[in-house]
């Protein structure tokens, strides 16, 4: 059972309160109709799926019902940080940010 810190509620809550929304920082194309099939498929389906540091989106489904981001290690399941949408992670696969 993960304990996840919601940056909106500022509380550690159990994982059952949340739902998962996959890889974070995928920007919706501004002009979807201008994309090729290749680009549209890549946007919809293709993912980094890393073993290790992963930036991902979570939804506090039975709490504040707001989205936020988390940096989590997909091997150890350690949640390194959680941050609000619009913010940038402090830690990346290359190491801590400056």
């Amino acid at each position, binding site marked *: *059972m*993960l304990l996840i810190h919601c940056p909106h509620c500022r509380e550690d809550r159990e*994982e*059952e309160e949340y*739902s*998962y929304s*996959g890889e974070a920082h995928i920007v919706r194309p501004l002009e979807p109709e201008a994309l090729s*099939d*290749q680009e*549209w*498929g*890549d946007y*919809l*389906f*293709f*993912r*980094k*799926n*890393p*073993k290790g540091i*992963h930036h*991902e989106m979570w939804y506090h489904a039975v709490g504040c019902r707001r989205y936020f981001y988390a940096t*989590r290690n*997909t*091997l*150890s*399941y350690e949640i390194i940080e959680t941050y609000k949408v619009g913010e940038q992670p402090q830690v990346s696969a290359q190491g801590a940010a400056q």
Partner: protein
Amino acid sequence: MKKYSGFSLFKNALSYHENWQKLWRSPKPKDYYDVIVVGGGGHGLATAYYLAKVHGITKVAVIEKGYLGGGNTARNTTIIRSNYLWDEAAQLYELSLKLWEGLSQELNYNVMFSQRGVLNLGHNLQDMRDIERRVNANRLNGIDGEVVTPERVKEIAPLINISKDCRYPILGASWQPRGGTARHDAVAWGYARGADALGVDLIQETEVIGIRRKNGSVVGVETTQGFIGSRKVACVTAGNSGVVAAMAGLRLPVESRPLQALVSEPVKPCLDTVVMSNAVHGYISQSDKGDLVIGAGVDGYNGYGQRGSFHVIEHTLQAICELFPAFSRVRMNRQWGGVVDTCPDACPIISKTSVDGLYFNCGWGTGGFKATPGSGYVFADTVANDHPHPLAAAFNVDRFNTGALIDEHGAAGVAH
């Protein structure tokens, strides 16, 4: 390779079973192979076996980072069925089922394939509509199946609760009598023994750490035992497919998730079929040694840890206890998790890639075990001819760009 027979059993009994031949050699890797299969699970070993057996390509290595069949092959609930909705999927799984039916003879190795039948329960009106549709689709594809009433479900599995008073009453089921289970380890060992006898090198405890390319073509793999050359590299690495793809600079439309299962203490024979329910999410069968084998769902988030969240198995056991009230006091013995690569359409990827000579067989998600023989068969054909086998063509990775998805969530997405 010495053939197993009643006579060999008798002969070896005379020497207290101490002189049985080893199942396979443990060779040192050569410098070059015609095909390298990355991943020594059931699908990888089956691929190597059919490359040698059907296509005569025997200069093949299977490279496995752990031991043969030690990953998801040894971590699943061994259910076999072919009652998938769409033609493409149904035909692939049916090819597998047909191969299962002759597999013990083919491999001269008892894979304990038991056609004890599979029930897929329906608990609401929409479930029953989906079941009717799926069974009709199956029959049009020549796959056995029938829609059965709750009373018939009770005849097949007498311990089941068909009371109308429970939260999710059973309204009926689909029944595939040719479905069943097999012994998971034996499948890997049987294919390994068969492949080894045909000259395939099975290289264990060697991890692939890089894929070497030259001008857009594969030239070999970097391993923990050094470089091994090959113009064809076939990756069958299940949950780690994304990691292996990244070695070649590729991304795949898969997400790796932990999938859990658990077994109870052994009890006397009480369930001689497989019962699955998508709606309440549980599936259960009884193994030959008596333990109840129970499958849970995937975790809600990506993970490479071979373990899962407790609330997922709690949810499954609630469903099992409602379906089979008699099992509520059975104690659970062991629980484990495997990492499965889930695809957005719950169908596998059997495909060439944008790198020449690099092939992927992945994305089987929560239900790859049943497909082991067919998966190996069509993938070996795809690799040998550098062209998709007719049954594999629809499972090209391109489908995520063309939009020709094969949406099997109804038949496959939840319980496998």
